[in-house]
């Protein structure tokens, strides 16, 4: 894998909802999710490197988050629904074991 930052793919089923309605998000990010269980050809354990946390914040407030373990497949896919109270910026953050963050923002509207 290249060292370039993986680019997440995010799809919202709609960006404008009435209050009380839900928005479905589908997210996919390229990542090996190296489990720390595998060994290389010479028998050394390959160190763990996974996305350990995924967070969705709306206007700075966390609305959905999860702590991930090595049991999550490579190129982690996450699908969930939010029921936003207000219009604003939805910020998605993937946190890598090495401390690096990958971020993606979407503007959503509640009418």
């Amino acid at each position, binding site marked *: 894998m290249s060292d370039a930052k993986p680019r997440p793919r995010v799809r919202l089923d709609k960006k404008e909802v009435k209050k009380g309605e*839900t928005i479905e998000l589908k997210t996919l990010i390229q990542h090996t999710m190296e*489990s720390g*269980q*595998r*060994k290389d050809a010479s028998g050394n354990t*390959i160190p763990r490197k996974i996305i350990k946390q995924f967070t*969705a914040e*709306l206007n700075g*407030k*966390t*609305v*959905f*988050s*999860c*702590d*991930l*373990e*090595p*049991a*999550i*497949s*490579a190129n*982690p*896919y*996450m*699908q*969930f*629904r*939010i*029921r*936003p*109270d207000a219009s604003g910026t939805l910020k998605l953050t993937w946190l890598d074991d090495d401390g690096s963050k990958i971020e993606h923002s979407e503007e959503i509207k509640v009418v």
Partner: protein
Amino acid sequence: AAVLPAQSFAQAAKNNSADLIKAFTGGKTAAAAKIKMDLPEIAENGNTVPMTVSVEGTKDLYATDLLIVADANPQGGVMTVHFSPESVAEVNTRIRCAETQNIIAVAKMSDGSFVTAQREVKVTIGGCGG
């Protein structure tokens, strides 16, 4: 619904999944039910098993946190999800299953109670190879 100690689900576990459940519930018992788990009965490729878990709730009683463990992976933890009043208590992802085993979900409800459910997944090719 029958009330079972959450640990009893994982008593035959090959890993730390029972400890993870205990730490999550603080030793409290979890009632069986209220969680819908959608997993294939037979997963051909354990590297990527689609999983949907949703916790039934009402406006006044809803899931705040959801722990998912696998009882025969090298490590028991799969994920912990944190919901809010602005999200739906539902998640869909893809998980790794080393072998045929039970996937156990335990949800913490807004009143501090716990509910649990489990599903067996039969795995043809394990997902922790190497």
